[in-house]
């Protein structure tokens, strides 16, 4: 599929912000299954200074500063991305019982090493309640992929999609107990659950196709940046992406922006914005198929 994508993040300031520095992760990655044909990140008003880079996990970053007083600020990504269908194929994943041994054999601390994705991370602490929930999803002799899908299904069942119940700072356990939230909450809870049962799990930020193909229902989470989970299913299968919000494997409708351990690694905009009493005044996404 070819998509034309536009993302806008807009902020209003209660009182003029003196100067700000922002680190953006809104430019999609190039991957085997995905190619960014065109892509540009802009700010309004234009930045005083900017610098592009790549972070530890290989995500694109854009740093910007605004060295003057601001009352409004917005960041926009516009681009065209080709996204191939990923074939789920056969379940070639390792059994859950053997997964630990396979992980231990990996002598790497590179960005794709599963070792990064097992320990608690800044936004996903260890939670005994979620651990118990995860263990209850398991059946004997399960494969890693089956286990991960079972957890995703159970979470999808448990959660009601509710954009008013949480915000970007809500802790996973809070959303878990309230059984409400958005893609970020469900992804965090799923990551916590998978790690508790020994499956390396990370956070994926990205876009969802806004307008569904004819005759299909619109997916949840398409109005804003979306999030889902990737988990490591053993040597043979490697990383598999699952969208717990829609209880499905990520496919041609999912355009990846960034990988990380949790939201804190991939937040679309991190900056001195928050301290200036800013509030998000707009966050809009359009992902339109190009015929």
């Amino acid at each position: 599929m070819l998509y034309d994508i536009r993302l806008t993040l807009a902020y209003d300031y209660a009182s003029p912000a003196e100067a700000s520095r922002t680190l953006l992760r809104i430019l999609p990655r190039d991957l085997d299954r995905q190619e960014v044909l065109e892509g540009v990140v802009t700010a309004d008003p234009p930045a005083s200074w900017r610098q592009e880079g790549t972070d530890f996990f290989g995500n694109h970053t854009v740093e910007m500063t605004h060295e003057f007083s601001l009352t409004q600020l917005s960041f926009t990504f516009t681009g065209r991305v080709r996204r191939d269908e990923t074939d789920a194929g056969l379940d070639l994943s390792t059994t859950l019982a053997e997964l630990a041994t396979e992980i231990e054999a990996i002598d790497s601390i590179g960005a794709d090493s599963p070792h990064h994705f097992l320990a608690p991370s800044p936004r996903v602490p260890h939670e005994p309640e979620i651990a118990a929930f995860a263990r209850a999803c398991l059946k004997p002799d399960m494969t890693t992929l089956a286990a991960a899908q079972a957890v995703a299904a159970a979470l999808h069942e448990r959660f009601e999609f509710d954009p008013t119940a949480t915000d970007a700072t809500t802790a996973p356990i809070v959303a878990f107990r309230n059984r409400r939230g958005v893609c970020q909450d469900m992804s965090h809870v799923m990551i916590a659950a998978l790690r508790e049962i020994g499956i390396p799990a990370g956070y994926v930020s990205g876009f969802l196709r806004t307008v569904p193909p004819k005759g299909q229902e619109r997916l949840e989470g398409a109005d804003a940046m979306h999030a889902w989970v990737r988990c490591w299913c053993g040597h043979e299968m490697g990383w598999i992406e699952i969208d717990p919000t829609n209880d499905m494997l990520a496919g041609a409708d999912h355009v990846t922006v960034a990988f990380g351990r949790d939201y804190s690694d991939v937040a679309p905009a991190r900056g001195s914005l928050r301290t200036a009493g800013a509030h998000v005044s707009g966050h809009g996404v359009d992902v339109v198929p190009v015929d």
Partner: protein
Amino acid sequence: MNKPEDLLRSDAARRLLDGYQPPPGVEDEMLRDDGTLRPIWASMLRHLAQQSPEVLAQRFARGEQYLHDTGVYFRQYTKDGSTERDWPLSHVPVLIHDTEWQGLADGLRQRADLLEQVMADLYGEGRLVRDGLLPAELVARNPEWLRPMVGVKPRSGHHLHFLAFEVGRSPDGSWMVLGDRAQAPSGSGFALENRVATGRTFPELFAESNVHRLAGFFRQFRDALNGLRGDGEGRVGILTPGQHVDTYYEHAYIARYLGFLLLEAGELAVDRGRLTVRTINGAVPLDVLWRRLDSNSADPLELDEASAIGTPGLVSALRSGGLCMVNALGSGVMETRAFLAFLPRIAERLLDAPLALPNIATWWCGQQKERAYVLDHLDRMLIGPAYSTGLPFDSESPTVLGGQFRRNSEQPVRDWIAQDGRNLVGQEAVTLSTTPAMIDGKLQPRPMVLRVFAARTPEGWAIMPGGYARIGRTIEPTALAMQAGGSVADVWVMSDEPVQAETLHPASDAAFSRKFPVLLPARSADNLYWLGRYVERSETAVRLLRAYHRRLEAYGPDALPLTDRIAAHLETFGLDVDEPLPAGLLALLEQSRGCASKVRDRFSTDGWNALADLAATARRMRGSVEPGADAVQVMGILLRKIAGYSGLVHENMFRFDGWRFLTIGRALERADQTAALLTAFADPDAPEGGFDLAVELGDSVMTHRRRYTVETNRATVIDLLALDADNPRSVFFQVNIVKDEEDKLARNRGAARSSPVARQVLPLWTALSVAEPADLSTARLVDIRSELSAISDALTARYLS
């Protein structure tokens, strides 16, 4: 009694050593296994034995007095918050011969080189993990391994510049490393203070004992840091988390000692890949930052997003080589306890040599074979968190000693290790050597750990010769931590030959040169400005309180309308006269002290002590002061203490820019307070006695009598307290000071035209210089106060923000 054996047999020594019994199987620093004295201790023991207990107590008190006067403290944390406590000095130093010390120092140099190589690999190629020398998990799960720093090359070419090692002595007498300190090692400044205090306790002995001096180490490190400045233009700063941390005293002390700027994140900014500090003359680039805060807090943009003590963009600046960080961000990973299990093998690979100095035997329970070994030898193991950066004995987390849980859990040890092995290490339960501590007039053996500091210099690693040992509170090694009541002793590295006296300064025959101009960070200037204001405000409050209680004493309560007017005026300060020494006054004094504590790196010790003493006196007297005569007397005492403080500061302080802000703060406050007094007490409608009161508060009774032939009236009072060019209490006099001092600031800044501050000051100055008393109605005085306030705003905008 020249021979050590004779010395031990003397009555005095026997009295001192009565009950001195190191536990069996433990090495003692002073006595050998057979109870004979190690020669290096002979003169110390002789010296201690020769003094009467009273004289010894006096000498120890002298050392403590020094620390107290200098303001050395540490912060103790309890469940109710934290408090400043006196520095716990154990008076008897640890003595080590320099031949032995050289061996230790060489071993630590090798270890420092090893740590650098490991650090470079963990943030570079990752070869140690790939080659199976370090488990991937111990890096990837490590909260101190900071992913944003991977691939960032340190500008200086090195990650580590300042390290400390915790070193203990094994039962066989050899040294071993118990832990590495690579994040932001503290204690080197305290070592200097330990040394001065101990030198005061044993002045003769110190002089004749050939003790290696510490200053040379600091000089080398200071020169090394200056050498790291890229173009030689930028500055060196010390980055502190702020005064809430237990080591803030040391940060300020080191900054003052070495002549570096003491900085907090709030005054730093990253400007296109360069780090700058806000000064009174705008942003100035910083080239080298000696970091005393944890890496993770350093940049909310790329590291801990919740950090309120970080500088956004710092990581980005490091990435572009904009500054040199000492130590590189992420160096905390080198403190990981589990690494101790792997460093011996890594040394063989990277250095092609075994560790010259072993570290404590350690097994990571995340590996099957090692876990089994630990379980088989539980009775000889300390079990603790693998990722902890603390010492085996200091741990706050559940720790197993000899198979027994020390706290917090019922779970059998074996289950715990089986379930959570990957997060645990076993460490050989070593015993530490003991060293003598003087307790209740007798020497007692106490466990000891040395902290040895290492600094990178162009000539290699310099090792600080001694200075810092931690001494247990009890014979139990678990009581070493200061938070648990442990203490700290000086360490004397002693030579057979006279040692070179070292100072921080270059040799006196070196060419004379002035240092480049001193920078004044805006935050320091702001604190000095407010210090000036708060102390002056306190003084006015004390004068008002004294005037109030004088009248209370003479006429009784409610007798004079003027007394009520004074009470009302005091209320504008938030002071309640129902309290003879109001809480609001203590608050003012605390605010003064608070400002001073934030500029301790550029404030004289005497000035600081005078201020601390003032606040302490007020606190102490608060409970017992009676209204009336007693309060008058107490206010008199406080006034004298304030005058003492002001004398120290204003007479002795060098006229650098900081002094100008202090002075401008005081002048603006005094001008404003005097104008306020005149509106309240020189108003035509003021109660009877108001004119005299104003003159009394303005400390101008004598002058008035000499100057005017008439009784006080509105014209004379306004003339004397508002317009007189020669009366230091007059508004005009103070505005004149503001004008002159600001002019010097502006000229230092190189401004061609008059500054925005001057444009506020000059109209007021001109008006006051030509005014007649009749021109200054109460309404005009109110206006003058707003003009003074506008000057303060302009000053803040121009220099302080």
